[in-house]
């Protein structure tokens, strides 16, 4: 940042400058790094640190072993299952939609409509999304009532506030993300490859089995890891649907409840919960960028 370079250099005592070309260019990025340090690094680091400290600031693994209680274990499992299921379903349907607008060769105006809508829908999450699904599949929801008039009773077997209710709602922001990330990957499949396969006598199924899918697999798996993380970190949607009770719920809500009511009445445990999330998210995003790097080998040219 230019201003700060001036300010800082003027502030230095003149004797501290032995040569006219002191490397001060790095000062230009100081404001940015300070900001990231204050609002992300330091807080996140301190949470990780405090996970391993007891109230007297001695090293401890107690907070981590406190995670080993039924309500928390079941919450992590629940969240991981929810994220995996919505990543799979959202990934599959998103892939098929991306296929439809790329290789499926839908008219160009449909392609751009789908992409624009995906941009909107991937941002249409949280509280309003929960409201929309309550109006659709809640007890009084339109679809619920329509099915009831056809003699199909959704409730009490199904509930929007249960696992599958959350899953069907999450998929609403998972599919568009898959579409947005997979469309460029599918665009990069070259028609020459298909023609070459056909010339060699490959059927369409063989082309997909031996050429297209192996090329696309890193992108697909990587994006699904991204979707997993996307669902794992989701909080507002689940909160609006479940009301934010700490019992039998996703991890993010458990963490939020730690702040607002100290639901588990143990501050160290909150840190450990957040630490656990950071670990899982790091693995997930690591997987994503690893897969991306592999995928780029095919997309570079």
């Amino acid at each position, binding site marked *: 940042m230019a201003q700060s370079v001036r300010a800082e250099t003027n502030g230095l005592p003149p004797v501290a400058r032995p040569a006219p070309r002191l490397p001060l260019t790095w000062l230009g990025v100081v404001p940015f790094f300070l900001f990231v340090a204050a*609002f992300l690094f330091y807080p996140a680091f301190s949470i990780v640190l405090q996970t391993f400290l007891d109230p007297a600031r001695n090293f401890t693994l107690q907070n981590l072993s406190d995670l080993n209680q039924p309500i928390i274990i079941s919450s992590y499992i629940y969240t991981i299952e929810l994220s995996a299921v919505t990543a799979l379903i959202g990934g599959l349907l998103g892939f098929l939609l991306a296929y*439809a607008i790329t290789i499926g060769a839908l008219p160009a105006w449909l392609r751009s409509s789908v992409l*624009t809508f995906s941009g909107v829908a991937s941002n249409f999450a949280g509280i309003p999304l929960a409201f929309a699904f309550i*109006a659709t599949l809640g007890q009084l*929801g339109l679809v619920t009532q329509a099915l009831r008039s056809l003699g199909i009773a959704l409730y009490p077997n199904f509930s929007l506030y249960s696992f599958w209710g959350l899953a069907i709602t999450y998929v*609403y922001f998972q599919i568009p993300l898959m579409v947005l990330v997979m469309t460029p990957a599918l665009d990069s499949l070259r028609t020459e490859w298909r023609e070459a396969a056909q010339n060699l006598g490959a059927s369409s199924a063989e082309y997909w089995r031996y050429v297209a899918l192996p090329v696309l697999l890193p992108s697909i798996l990587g994006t699904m890891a991204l979707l997993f993380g996307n669902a794992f970190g989701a*909080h507002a949607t689940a909160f609006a649907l479940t009301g934010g009770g700490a019992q039998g719920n996703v991890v993010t809500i458990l*963490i939020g409840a730690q702040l607002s009511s100290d639901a588990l009445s143990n501050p160290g445990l909150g840190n450990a919960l957040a630490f656990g999330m950071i670990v899982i998210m790091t693995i997930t995003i690591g997987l994503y960028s690893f897969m991306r790097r592999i995928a780029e080998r095919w997309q570079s040219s």
Partner: protein
Amino acid sequence: MIRRTSPWAWVWLLLGVIYFFVPLYATIQFSLQAKKGVLSLTAYQNVLSSPAFFSSFAFSFQTALITILVSALLIVPTSYWVNLKLPRLRPAIEFLTLLPIVVPAVVLVFALIRTYNRTALTDSRSGTYVLLIGAYVMLSFPYMYRAVDTGLRSINARTLTEAAQSLGASWITVLFRVIFPNVYISLLSGAFITFAIVMGEFTIASLLSQPAFGPYMNQLSSSKVYEPSALAIISFGLTWAAIGLLEVIGRRLPGRVQLVGGR
């Protein structure tokens, strides 16, 4: 080579259209049923005439503008400087701006509140507002940085800088009168997505007890039946407006920005 549209493409599209439009249709339908037996805009009238709607909307609107301003003032000079003088730092900056995706909003706000507990940042209204802006600016980084970086790479910042400097321009002049106007369009695309995210954000605002639009929407659902649907439609319209403008601008952009919002 022109290929025929595969019949399966239509099947998948139809499936998508059903899944995505039925909830929207249901929400609209639901929001019009506030008066028994007739379709009416009563729910919308109730929402729009409530002072709480306006105060929370205005609060989030203002917060969004401040977030965009702070984010732009941090991102544009930094990525300009990195492009020009410190290209080695680019991967580091890229990594840092992507971190908010790894640290979910709820963990971010949890860490902020725990870390700055019993300091001026959590003890006062203006303190928590600073935390709110800080957290939102972090959330905006992935979009703002990518938008600005793509913009900067396409304008050849070095040549522009040298040209301006040889005409006697200072660094500040170069930055604000040459670089900013040239990445303006890219900046706008990052700004619209930031706007859409901040306007609907719930987690951070609610845990910091801010009178924002997201918490207001949630609160309304505990006392009202039809109004939340009306709000959902209004909010969806808002997102459409922001992303729609982004699309219009996007046609003039060299690269596209990935869009993912707060959950």
